[in-house]
């Protein structure tokens, strides 16, 4: 508002360059070094200032950390669930049980025919003997089979749908087509519940994104409010800085650094909270995995997610304080 007013005024009547106050002239290198030094000092001083008030800082940081830890933990949960789901899906297939009279040579012909279909990527033939061996191994009913004499099992074709035929509707069409084959007895969709599982995980992922966005907004508000209070507390100082010739950027800088520190410290604490939760859940998860004969191990936040958490939290801090500074600092400058 005021900026545009000044711009207008300058547009009409530009002051001759000589009549402007001189900025101090320094070499580029020296200027850059001074700039870095100032930023390092501000970063250091603001952090020291925050740590000098451990209670107040701790409460703000804890609030930020909890708000950030929730979506991070949910993200982690989903990553782990997806890992399980992926395992299931890889084993997911349509089993086509052929009629008892179909022998292996005929079954191989049918398999070759089915491979031509666009909605099928691979077809595996499970012979009667193979089926019997598997049944013996997993059912524990081998003795009963021996008494039966001979092999009662049909030939089975394990079909893996192609990538474009993964949707529930396409799979249902595939099952119907298979059951319509004269040689087919019945088809069973192993993938169905893995599909449902994936859909649920996807829904949760959307919810996590929404939650993350809302809680990020909460972090923005927490930091913005904290910085606003800091500005109120230091109003005299800011006014005096103004009077002795501090630029707006110079006055703003410590508040922006404070905000960045709040965000970063909150991010670090959130990371620790999530790591702690993962560590606490490691043993129960291992027990659960054992029950399901799975290799499941809880995965922690990977490097990318960690970087996103820490970088994002620092950025939220800067943005939050930027907003507070923009709204509340401009009122202090005398004119």
């Amino acid at each position, binding site marked *: 508002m005021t900026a545009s007013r000044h711009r207008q005024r300058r547009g009409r009547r530009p002051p001759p360059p000589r009549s402007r106050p001189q900025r*101090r002239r320094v070499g580029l290198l020296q200027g850059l070094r001074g700039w870095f030094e100032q930023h390092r000092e501000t970063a250091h001083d603001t952090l020291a200032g925050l740590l000098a008030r451990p209670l107040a800082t701790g409460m703000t940081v804890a609030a930020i950390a909890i708000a950030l830890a929730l979506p991070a933990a949910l993200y982690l949960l989903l990553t782990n669930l997806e890992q399980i789901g992926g395992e299931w899906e890889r084993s997911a297939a349509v089993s086509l049980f052929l009629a008892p009279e179909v022998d292996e040579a005929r079954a191989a012909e049918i398999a070759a025919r089915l491979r031509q279909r666009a909605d099928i990527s691979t077809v595996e033939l499970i012979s009667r003997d193979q089926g019997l061996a598997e049944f013996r191994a997993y059912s524990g009913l081998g003795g009963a089979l021996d008494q039966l004499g001979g092999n009662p099992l049909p030939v089975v074709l394990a079909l893996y749908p192609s990538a474009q035929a993964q949707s529930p509707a396409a799979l249902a069409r595939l099952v119907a087509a298979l059951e319509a084959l004269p040689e087919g007895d019945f088809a069973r969709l192993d993938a169905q519940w893995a599909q449902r599982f994936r859909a649920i995980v996807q829904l949760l992922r959307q919810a996590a994104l929404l939650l993350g966005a809302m809680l990020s907004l909460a972090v923005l508000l927490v930091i913005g409010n904290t910085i606003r209070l800091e500005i109120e507390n230091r109003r005299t100082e800011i006014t005096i800085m103004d*009077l002795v010739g501090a630029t707006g950027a*110079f006055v703003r800088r410590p508040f922006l650094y404070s905000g960045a520190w709040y965000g970063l410290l909150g991010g670090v604490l959130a990371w620790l909270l999530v790591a702690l939760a993962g560590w606490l859940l490691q043993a129960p998860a291992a027990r659960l995995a054992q029950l399901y004969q799975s290799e499941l191990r809880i995965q922690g936040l990977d490097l990318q997610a960690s970087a996103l958490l820490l970088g994002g939290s620092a950025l939220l801090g800067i943005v939050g304080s930027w907003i507070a500074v923009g709204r509340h600092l401009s009122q202090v400058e005398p004119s």
Partner: protein
Amino acid sequence: MIQFDHVTKRYPERGDALKDLSLRLTAGEMAFLTGHSGAGKSTLLKLIGLIERPTRGQVLVNGRNLGSLPRRLIPYHRREIGMIFQDHRLLPDRTVFDNVALPLVAAGMPRRDIARRVRAALDQVGLLRLERARPLALSSGEQQRVGIARAVVGRPPIILADEPTGNLDPDLSREIFTLFERFHEVGVSLLIATHNLELVEEMSYRTLRLHAGRLVADSGGW
């Protein structure tokens, strides 16, 4: 150096603090500003430091029209002016040293260069031994001198002093005025608002007298 052309400053709630005031101070000049309480002395100094803007008229400093100075250049303008405030304007929770260092810190001077300048300024006002003290632990006169040290530490070409000896005993007041004289001798322009008529007469510099916002007497100038 400093020029007022038909300047009026009106505070909405109090009426005109300055009325159609014109004056000119040349570079390197030292002048006193006198007048009753409420005459407009502080207001006049604030207009020069761009703490207030005139309602009408123009203020020029160094040939630069303050009315058309872009906002972002105001800090650089203020760095050329050392201001001594009637109410000191010190930071109570900072040491004397830090208070005096403020203009240099604000100007982005490297820390190692600051200490030397600050000690030199404190030495000039005789407060070197108090650099670690906090303003509230100082007498009013000592606080005033901290304010003076802060105004001169950046070696500005213009010094504006608002009642710099208000709380000082006659000896200290004379000492401070002598200090101002030394700045004057090295080419600094000074405008000093004061009630200390005794010293003003003794020192025989140009004196501007305000009455109810108007310039009613000017002992020198153009």
